[in-house]
């Protein structure tokens, strides 16, 4: 006759149960400690986003036409006010998320939006300063042109400037230091 355990097949004796509970508690505390450490670390802002380069904080000195504005351009543009984010999945009947989690989420959203704005603004800033350099170079070139061959080269350069102005205007709207109007003189300033 088989000995039947008095506590049933799924139950354990008190000592064994105590051991299991102790081990489970140790494991649980390990998990909690690990999670607590994780929450103390700065979360990555955006897994797919490229971190902003330090160089983004340093903007190049402007062209000879506007040497005084170096530090102005280096200071960067003020960011537009960030919109509060609406976290998905938080319906009207859902319990509100913990305050610290909500703050972290909002902070992360702001960082992502700021980065996207920086990237978009940086492309137009780069296009505008390149257009300024192109505009001045074509202007100088035409100022030096004397022979018919040099006049032709001047016209070729102007055509490129007009085309570049169209592209920059269509994408960026305006540029602070150079005209994007197709028919403006070359150089425009």
């Amino acid at each position, binding site marked *: 006759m088989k000995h039947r355990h008095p506590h049933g097949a799924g139950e354990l004796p008190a000592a064994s149960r105590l051991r299991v509970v102790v081990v489970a508690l140790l494991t649980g505390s390990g998990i909690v400690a690990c999670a607590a450490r994780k929450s103390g670390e700065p979360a990555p802002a955006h897994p797919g986003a490229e971190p902003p380069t330090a*160089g983004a904080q*340093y903007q190049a000195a402007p062209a000879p036409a506007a040497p005084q504005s170096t530090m102005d351009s280096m200071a960067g543009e003020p960011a537009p006010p960030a919109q509060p984010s609406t976290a998905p999945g938080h319906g009207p009947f859902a319990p509100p998320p913990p305050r610290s989690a909500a703050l972290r989420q909002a902070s992360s959203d702001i960082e992502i939006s700021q980065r996207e704005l920086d990237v978009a603004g940086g492309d137009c800033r780069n296009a505008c300063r390149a257009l300024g350099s*192109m505009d001045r*170079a074509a202007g100088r070139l035409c100022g030096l*042109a004397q022979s018919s061959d040099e006049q032709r080269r001047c016209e070729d350069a102007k055509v490129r400037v007009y085309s*570049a102005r169209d592209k920059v205007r269509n994408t960026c709207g305006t540029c602070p230091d150079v005209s994007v109007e197709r028919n403006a003189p070359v150089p425009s300033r």
Partner: protein
Amino acid sequence: MTRLRPVVRAIAAVAIALAATFAIGCRARENKSEQDSAQGIVDMELMAFLSEARALHHQANLKEESNDLPGATAAMQRLVSARRPHAGKTTPEVEEVLADAYARLAELQLRQGALEAAAEAVKNGLAHAPEPTYFRGHLIEIEGLVEEARAAGLADAGKPEEAALAREKAIQLLEQVVRIQDQVIQRSLAARDAGATEGAR
């Protein structure tokens, strides 16, 4: 009781294994944090250099505002001679700062009639901007202006042939600027369009 011991042991073993796994995971995380911290120190070095660059540009602005061109030139010379972060390693941000500083230095020297010094500054700057970027285009723009000034000086000195050569060189350099900056614009706008498409998804 005896039959259940292996069950208890098994549960305990699993629990211990889990605890060990988490402990290892935590340690790995700590190691990563330490690595991140070391990276942060390196970034601080870069940030210090960028901050110094901003301060020196600001100083040059103030000197230029008071028509002290030698003072502004000295500020840029300090920047190009400043201790660079990541010794022995090329950092894009540092390269951009240096290319830009050499362009401003060359421009300041050109305004003071120091053509040779300006040409030397352009040459040094181009070493930091080998790719067709705005910075390279801007440096070549200054080089074109240096050649234009040289042509004018040679013409004034009664050397028409040499002046014509310098003028032709200036035209070629300025044509090069137009081409480079055209490429820069196309690339910048393409990148922006790609970003807009990505954002719309």
